[in-house]
């Protein structure tokens, strides 16, 4: 089925561990995004990518690493997880900048 899928849906890990959240889209959209959603805040942009091998920082990039070797995949890595990174993470894609973004169903990440 066409769409955007995130995995895992739920993840519990410990501080200091590395964790990778996966995002895969089947539309061949150029743009992909990672957001985090926390209570009292809207979605905050972590990183985005305009095309394969092109990534850029968003509003809250510290502590995160991304890569985009293929158009359809955009993994997000927390190299050394901290409790402040406990959040719900959403991946999105769009055909171009300024077009509506299409979202995955999110990954709920808890860091103990």
């Amino acid at each position, binding site marked *: 089925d066409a769409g*955007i899928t995130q995995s895992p849906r739920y993840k519990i890990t410990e501080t200091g561990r590395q964790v990778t959240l996966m995002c895969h889209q089947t539309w061949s959209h150029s743009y992909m*995004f990672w957001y985090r959603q926390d209570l*009292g*805040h*809207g*979605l*905050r*942009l972590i990183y*985005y990518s305009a095309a394969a091998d092109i990534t850029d920082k*968003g509003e809250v990039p510290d502590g995160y690493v991304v890569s985009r070797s293929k158009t359809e995949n955009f993994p997000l890595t927390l190299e050394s997880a901290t409790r402040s990174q406990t959040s719900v993470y*959403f991946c*999105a894609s769009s055909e171009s*900048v*300024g077009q*509506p*973004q*299409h*979202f*995955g*169903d*999110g990954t709920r990440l808890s860091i103990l």
Partner: protein
Amino acid sequence: DQQVKQNSPSLSVQEGRISILNCDYTNSMFDYFLWYKKYPAEGPTFLISISSIKDKNEDGRFTVFLNKSAKHLSLHIVPSQPGDSAVYFCAASGADSNYQLIWGAGTKLIIKP
């Protein structure tokens, strides 16, 4: 400092009546505005958008109004239905944000039967 504000965390409306969700922004360079709807345990879903060259855009039961002088937009849902119960986010973009979306904190809409 939040550039996009949704000052009502929640709103309760009777089924069949009009729901009005509000959003204020501070950056006059924003030129594209969107509304998203989000159900629990799902990602946001695009609902409707408006460009700054317009002051109204309509799609079925959903209408978005933009007042540029007041830096205010609103989403009207008429008539409200139980399936409209969700969290609604407004988002804005423009040259200042490199055309990336800046999001409000969301308003939880509850439709009462």
